[in-house]
């Protein structure tokens, strides 16, 4: 990559006169200006701003999809793109370089059109005596998005051509000559101005951003804060799930529900028991409503992997299964979308929110634990959950039965959520180490359960097939698939004790103790 080919961006005030650049006898260049034209810029990123987080702006204009480094304004890649879709997936991009960059940001997530900025653009080539282009200038005005706003933001981008540094320096000085009403700024500022024009704030919707808790606050306040943050994730994803753009919306939604339930499970004596019970049930019910949809998503995502598990000759007969699945998914999505749009559901979320925002009534009889301080509860509940994992893990039989592994997986999940909820209270480095240890064990258990669920689903599907000659090849393929999944699952099961031993050792214990150290009682 050529580092010296970075453009310079200037922001210019209203009074800046473009002719000052071109009609100056002191400068020995000529200018070939293109007529000014309206140019809409379409801004894309994933729902959780993965490109932005990796320093990249994705802008579609003039039928070109451009990836631009935000820190220096250099074009990373560019590809012809003749549509302006509401969303697209990296796989749709024919150009290898652009596609792999996009995939590096996110494989499962779609890129959404965040907004379209109307701009006026005028570009010109700067020519030397041989009529060779030595730099290009682009003057861009961001048109106000509403009638109330009068101010037009204007920028000049001066892009160098390789090997013409002297000319570039001269031009930069020329634009800045006083009184110039121009000042150098950054591409980042220009991009922020574009986002601002469509009222976008980069970085919102990132579901993994931890809530910053204060260790000395009461647990009831901290719990409300955590629950409000998961509620925000629920709200944000509900807008997108019915659009069926990518499967991550539903996934994030489900994680938010599970987190909510997991927090609620720990609020005995902290929130009033009646409300606690009602909300626990309501969220369990809401989560349950999404189960089938998520399962279908997973099978459809895994379609290729499933096919590969079978010998080539048996693969095609699976098509019937997947078509069936897609139809069910369509139906299920419609029904779930109806549910989240229903008055009943909306009212439920509204009530939940006002409950969380209402002033907590201190009632020592009904909520005796509510005034405990956050760090105490955090340490106690993490320790309890960790010990539980150890206890259950150690008593797991040598055969590691399905029931044992299923239960242990839930224990691990609970511990993981607790670590995430209270993450802002603990030293980041130690926490990361603890989570890594736990994740290693969780990966094993997660895979085991997934393979079990898949087997069960397929077995049920198989028994639901009507006895018909046409379905014989399909039944054979499903049977083959169940066998293959079974073998895989048994391999994962075998691995369990080894993984658990890695988790259950002095090193991990030291890490946990290190984690609790800041809050140790004297």
């Amino acid at each position, binding site marked *: 990559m*050529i580092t010296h080919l970075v453009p310079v961006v200037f922001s210019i005030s209203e009074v800046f006169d473009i002719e000052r650049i071109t009609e100056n006898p002191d400068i020995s260049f000529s200018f070939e200006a293109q007529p000014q034209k309206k140019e809409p810029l379409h801004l894309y990123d994933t729902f959780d701003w993965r490109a932005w987080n990796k320093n990249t702006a994705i802008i579609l204009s003039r039928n070109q999809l451009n990836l631009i480094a935000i820190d220096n304004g250099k074009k990373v890649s560019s590809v012809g793109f003749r549509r302006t879709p509401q969303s697209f997936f990296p796989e749709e991009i024919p150009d290898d370089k652009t596609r792999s960059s996009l995939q590096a940001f996110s494989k499962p997530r779609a890129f959404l059109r965040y907004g379209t900025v109307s701009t006026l653009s005028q570009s010109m080539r700067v020519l030397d005596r*041989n009529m*060779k282009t030595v730099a290009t200038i682009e003057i861009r005005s961001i048109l106000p998005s509403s009638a109330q706003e009068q101010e037009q933001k204007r920028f000049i981008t001066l892009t160098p*051509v*390789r*090997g*013409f540094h002297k000319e570039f320096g001269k031009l930069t000085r020329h634009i800045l000559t006083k009184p110039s009403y121009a000042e150098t700024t950054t591409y980042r500022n220009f991009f922020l101005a574009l986002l601002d024009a469509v009222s976008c704030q980069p970085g919102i919707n990132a579901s993994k951003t931890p809530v910053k808790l204060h260790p000395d606050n009461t647990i009831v306040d901290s719990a409300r804060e955590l629950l409000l943050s998961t509620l925000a994730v629920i709200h944000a994803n509900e807008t997108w799930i019915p659009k069926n753009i990518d499967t991550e919306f539903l996934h994030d939604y489900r994680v938010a529900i599970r987190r909510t339930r997991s927090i609620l499970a720990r609020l005995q004596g902290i929130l009033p028991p009646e409300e606690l019970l009602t909300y626990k049930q309501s969220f369990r019910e809401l989560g349950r409503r999404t189960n089938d949809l998520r399962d279908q998503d997973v099978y459809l995502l895994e379609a290729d992997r499933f096919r590969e598990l079978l010998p080539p000759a048996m693969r095609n007969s699976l098509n019937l299964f997947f078509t069936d699945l897609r139809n069910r998914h369509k139906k299920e999505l419609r029904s779930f979308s109806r549910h989240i749009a229903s008055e009943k559901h909306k009212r439920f979320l509204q009530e939940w929110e006002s409950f969380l925002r209402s002033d907590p009534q201190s009632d020592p009889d009904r909520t005796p634990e509510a005034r405990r301080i956050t760090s105490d509860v955090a340490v106690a509940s993490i320790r309890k959950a960790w010990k539980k994992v150890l206890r259950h893990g150690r008593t797991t039989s040598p055969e590691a039965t399905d029931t044992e592994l299923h239960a242990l997986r839930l224990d691990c999940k609970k511990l993981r959520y607790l670590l995430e909820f209270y993450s802002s209270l603990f030293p980041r480095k130690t926490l990361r180490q603890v989570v890594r240890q736990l994740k290693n064990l969780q990966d094993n258990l997660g895979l085991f359960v997934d393979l079990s669920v898949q087997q069960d689903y397929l077995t049920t599907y198989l028994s639901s097939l009507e006895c018909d000659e046409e379905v014989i090849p399909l039944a054979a393929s499903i049977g083959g698939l169940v066998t293959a999944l079974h073998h895989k699952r048994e391999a994962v099961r075998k691995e369990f004790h080894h993984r658990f031993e890695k988790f259950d050792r002095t090193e991990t214990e030291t890490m946990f103790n290190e984690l609790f150290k800041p809050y140790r009682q004297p």
Partner: protein
Amino acid sequence: MKTIALYSIKGGVGKTASAVNLAYLSSLTAPPTLICDLDPQGASSFYFRIVADKKYSSKKFLKGNKKIYNNIKGTDFDNLDLLPADFSYRNLDLELQEEKKPQKKLKSNIQELNTEYPYIFFDCPPNLTLLSESVFAASDVILVPLIPTTLSLRTFGQLLEFFKENKLDTGKIRGFFTMFERRKAMHRQIVEEYGGKKRFLSQIIPYNSEVEKMGIYRAPLNAVRPHAPAALAYKKLWEELMHEIA
């Protein structure tokens, strides 16, 4: 990195036009591409309106990598860069003689460009000198444009002879016909005879006055007149070559 030399002992056979158009096509299919103008007459530099910096000379060229790198200029086309020739290049041969291993000089001088350009083109001066030998060693493919005449074929034979005598790899050499005129019986006859032969590419570049006008457009023909007969032929030639290289 693949290096492709446009080379002929004989002048006026379409070396520069071929180098400029093929390099342009390469910049579209396998960006970015560099074209090194090695001819002191600087025809390809002229086509791209590029003049070397005053301080640039054959001496800097011989110093290699960093000096070369700093003097590369962007053309008016995306992903196509050029190392301009300087008039001092007429002394390159004399200066090469003073080097330790003159034949290997060019190869080592462009080594650092390896990571940046998938394709590098050399536009060579028409003669057979020490510089040519240096080009032979540095190139993966030596493309020899030939007008379908006996004289052209004779120089092609001379080149092969030279390679054999000096134990160079004749497998790098690929001839192709340029300025082909169907109305000329001799052209037809030669093309027919040599067309599919070993060491010849099958695509032929027809005579096209548009090619001469490149001096007026000062741009690759494929960029300004992509539908001109010669431009279409260059496109097919590039495809054939890519197929062979890959």
